[in-house]
């Protein structure tokens, strides 16, 4: 149990750090989607299936969808 | 100079946040539990729902959900006003 918690939480932190660190906005959104996915697994481990389903439905599809639509309508690179 | 000041402020804020996390009460042993125990024991009798979370969302703390519905409505109206093309 403890090992699972530690692994999942480290993965969440790595994903969020990558989402903040990437300059390419699309890569940043992909890392954010990965972090949201693993955060949902952490909610699952914390025995919160309601929250996990909400995070799954929203983080898996809708967040990535609206971010990518917004990036498509604007500029893909973050200007320096 | 400015960069060093920024780094120092960053370190201070990070140390503050992380020490707050470390010295909170231990994980897995919540401090106050009367309200939640009441909900867990009485949800089946009073609301007749097996899922305690749903009974809280829609019954015990329904005002929260009402506020959430208002915020969602406002956000959707804002998006529609911003992005909808005005005809004529």
């Amino acid at each position, binding site marked *: 149990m403890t090992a699972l918690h530690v692994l999942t939480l480290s993965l969440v932190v790595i994903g969020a750090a990558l989402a903040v660190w990437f300059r390419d906005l699309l890569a940043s959104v992909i890392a954010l989607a990965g972090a949201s996915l693993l955060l949902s697994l952490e909610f699952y481990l914390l025995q919160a299936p309601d929250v996990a389903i909400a995070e799954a439905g929203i983080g898996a599809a809708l967040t*990535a969808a609206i971010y990518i639509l917004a990036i498509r309508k604007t500029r893909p690179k973050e200007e320096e | 100079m400015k960069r060093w000041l920024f780094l120092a402020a960053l370190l201070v804020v990070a140390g503050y946040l992380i020490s707050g996390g470390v010295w909170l009460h231990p994980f897995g042993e919540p401090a106050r539990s009367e309200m939640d125990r009441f909900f867990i024991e009485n949800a089946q009798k009073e609301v007749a729902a097996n899922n305690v979370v749903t009974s809280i969302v829609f019954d015990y703390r329904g005002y929260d959900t009402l506020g959430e519905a208002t915020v969602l409505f406002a956000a959707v109206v804002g998006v529609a006003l911003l992005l909808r093309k005005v005809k004529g």
Partner: protein
Amino acid sequence: MIAELGFLVAAAVLVGYAFVSMARLAAGPTTADRAVALDTINTLVVATMVLLGAAFGQVVLVDVAIVYALLSFIATLYIARYMEGGLK
């Protein structure tokens, strides 16, 4: 028939593989590499969730895995459509 410990260990191993995928997500030279890594993490997490539902002995938790299996490819489709040059 105590297979719950086996399920738990298998789930931990699968989460460990997600580290490798995360390394590819960090390193991948093109966007497509990162999207492949995200897809792999999706599959691993779905398998992990099903295994943990059996390991905890709670049937209702498996619904989360169904939602993920059903919806996780939509993000991949959006990334692919973006790379094709669609969605204008």
